């Protein structure tokens, strides 16, 4: 039940962002799917490993791979799906709590949260880069044939 809820919430919020980023009408729903499935991977791996950074990495990797897949299928740049798809993973809450701790003069907590936020952002980029390497190598193999 909780899983279905999480899926619907992340799907809707990714769709919202897809429209906010003016993505073409046809790709809005696919972007939503990419975001929701990426978030599911994040959610499940987080339940397994209890690490924000690692699970964000897996979530972003899923988003990247799915984005590349849709990009190949519909002959559109992968950014269309990836840009909105990573949004649920973006550490907005982490940034907020970093700021809140700074206001409360809790500098060590702020540093912990800030570093974690930065590493989550880095994990997202790593996931996307690795997935794009995958797709490039697939392309190269196909061109050789």
């Amino acid at each position, binding site marked *: 039940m909780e899983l279905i809820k999480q899926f619907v919430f*992340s799907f809707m919020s990714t769709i919202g962002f897809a429209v906010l980023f003016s993505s073409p009408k046809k790709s809005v729903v696919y972007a939503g799917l990419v975001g929701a499935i990426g978030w599911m991977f994040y959610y499940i791996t987080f339940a397994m490993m209890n690490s924000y950074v690692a699970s964000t990495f897996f979530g972003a990797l899923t988003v990247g791979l799915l984005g590349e897949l849709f990009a190949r299928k519909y002959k559109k*740049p992968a950014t269309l799906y990836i840009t909105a798809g990573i*949004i649920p993973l*973006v550490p907005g809450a982490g940034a*907020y709590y970093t700021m*809140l701790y*700074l206001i409360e003069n809790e500098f060590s907590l702020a540093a912990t949260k800030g570093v974690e936020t930065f590493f989550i952002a880095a994990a*997202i980029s*790593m996931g996307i880069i690795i997935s794009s390497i995958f797709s490039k190598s697939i392309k190269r193999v196909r061109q050789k044939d």
Partner: protein
Amino acid sequence: MTNLNEIEREEVKKLLVLATLAGRLMLKAGAETYRVEDTVMRICQSRKDIQYVDAFVIPTGIFISLEYKGELISYIKRVKNISIDLNKIALVNEFSRTFVSSHMSIEDGIREIKRINKIHIYSNFTQAFFGAIASSFFCLLFQGTSMDFIAAFVVSFIVSFLLSFVSSLKLSFFIDKFIASVFISILSYLFIKLGIGNSLDKVIIGAIMPLVPGVAITNAIRDTMSGDFMSGLSRGMEAVFSALAIAFGVGIVLIFFIGGY
């Protein structure tokens, strides 16, 4: 069309302008650096007699130079105000492919780019509505209650109109985000006081989500990791200062209302 070998110097200049316009359009729509460089170079190399092309793209400008019959021609274009528009990226991408593979004339190409530049597929209202949906569901994703959901929706909806008004004044991205986040926190606080919404944190987190520079951060790190250090730095600065603007905006209001700790 048949005598591609004889395109004259003027034509080459126009081609360069076309490539720059296409590149600028993509860059303004928030495309990745490598994609813009790729598109610009592909457009330039698509016509014959151009021996050497190189493009250097950073988020704040495009520099291209090409060699035509032993003569070097270059073009520089400054880029300001990046706002993400994925539809334009897709359209320019498609355009560059058709331009390269067909014998489309350069004038037609420039006209097509100008047409793409004017396209806005969603109205302000639709974007505000979907932005509000994004915020409110994001709030639920972080275990907000249904009351938080309503508060985040309304706050985000109001603020996105405010934001589009403020950004039409062309102040600076920092001021825009600062003002927007000040209003987000004030409105969220009011909603909580009125009894709509249970947790101030969650409403604010949801409502600031459209302002959070998530795309800028990930693109910055991506650019840096793939060797585009200048773009990485430039986007990184944008991301850091956007985050600071939001933090200042929210922070000031929270200190004011809740009182410094």
